[in-house]
């Protein structure tokens, strides 16, 4: 039996007295693309943020390649180098040029030489189609360009897993395509990806598995064909009828 690269068991998360995640159990395997869908406030972003401990769960177990995140002796910074994350609001560093945004973590965390980091950064900028933007500041980028730089920045650490937190939700509609294209390319190359999104087309086309969450629980999961084509749960049917 194949070991999951991410294993989540009995995960609970609450903000104060407000429970956000209840008994989440999810296994994600190497090279799998898992898409998490659900209405706003369903806890899907919180779930994603628990995977690199940007949110600390109350109880349960999260293992990344077998290493427990709940174990106090685990060095979370080391785990995070293997988990790239892309945010809804891009979160580029506005005081650094595009190339510096991408080079910073490889140099400071991976201890690469600036030369090596620069080569990697340029290679990744080429990959996301933004070679000519290396020396500009993020403020001069469009939303779609900023998000592609953010993806390049995460990839520069050569992570094993990429987490996407609604990467296209803050974009103007005409820019969604360019970001999704980069993500599709990544998926095709075999990157393990967990994607929280409202892009049902992407979920259907690229996802190996779809997880539908509502009110902090996993209501249904399966292949895109199962979940979109033949949803078993009434709540899934209701949600899909609204968004499709």
């Amino acid at each position, binding site marked *: 039996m194949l070991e999951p690269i991410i294993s989540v068991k009995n995960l609970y998360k609450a903000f104060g007295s407000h429970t956000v995640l209840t008994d989440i159990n999810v296994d994600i395997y190497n090279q799998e693309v898992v898409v998490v869908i659900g209405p706003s406030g369903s806890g899907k972003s919180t779930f994603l943020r628990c995977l690199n401990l*940007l949110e600390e769960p109350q109880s349960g177990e999260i293992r990344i390649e077998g290493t427990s995140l709940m174990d106090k002796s685990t060095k979370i*910074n080391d785990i995070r180098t293997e988990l790239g994350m892309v945010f809804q609001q891009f979160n580029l560093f506005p005081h650094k040029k595009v190339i510096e945004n991408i080079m910073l973590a490889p140099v400071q965390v991976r201890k690469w030489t600036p030369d090596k980091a620069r080569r990697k950064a340029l290679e990744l900028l080429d990959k996301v189609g933004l070679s000519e933007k290396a020396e500009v500041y993020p403020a001069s980028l469009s939303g779609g360009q900023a998000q592609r730089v953010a993806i390049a920045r995460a990839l520069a650490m050569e992570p094993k897993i990429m*987490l996407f937190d609604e990467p296209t939700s803050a974009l103007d509609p005409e820019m969604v395509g360019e970001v999704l294209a980069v993500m599709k390319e990544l998926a095709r190359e075999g990157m393990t990806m967990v994607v929280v999104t409202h892009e049902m087309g992407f979920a259907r086309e690229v996802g190996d598995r779809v997880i539908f969450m509502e009110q902090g629980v996993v209501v249904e999961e399966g292949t895109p064909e199962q979940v979109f084509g033949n949803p078993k749960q009434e709540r899934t049917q209701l949600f899909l009828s609204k968004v499709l």
Partner: protein
Amino acid sequence: MDFRFDIIIHYLPVLLRGTMLTIGVSLVSILVGSILGLGVGFGKMAPRWYWRWPFHCYINFFRGTPLIVQILIVHFGLIPAFYGSTNALLSAFVALSLNSAAYSAEIFRAGIQSIDQGQQEAALSLGMSKRQAMRFIILPQAIKRMIPAFGNEFIVLVKDSSLMSVVATQELMYWTTTMKGQYLRIWEPYLTAALIYFILTYSLSKLLNVVERRL
């Protein structure tokens, strides 16, 4: 009314010596106060209330009591207690630095907390430690936002250093008062002092404008 430029010119070397000390005291207090303030500011952002509490008290004491009272406490109480005898120059450094640290701490805290949480999250998600995130991501952005507030604080500090004259620190105001006593004239010493203070603070604000644009 006759305005006697001759006594100003006669006294100018002494006033300029006082001005140099005013600048020196201000620079040292700005520097020490800022460094101390960064520490106090971090202390006030500590996660637990009992770690925050001493820093909270420090800031409120120095913001909530008159500087002149603090100067007198430092000069006649604190310095003799540690140093044996008192020393006007040392009192100036200590009193103004401690006072400035309290205000600087709040400037640092406000600046740091004004940076979007997403910046820290992005840094952490790349594997950076909290310290690295602070150093490379948060502080560089925060300091730029802090500059106008620090400009205010530095200007206030330069002006408030004149209060040191009451414990006979031989800075600009001390010599101004001496000049007034020697010539029994009002306008010449005070207007000269006002002009020199204005030149100092105005240059400082211009300098900070340049720094802000450069960053």
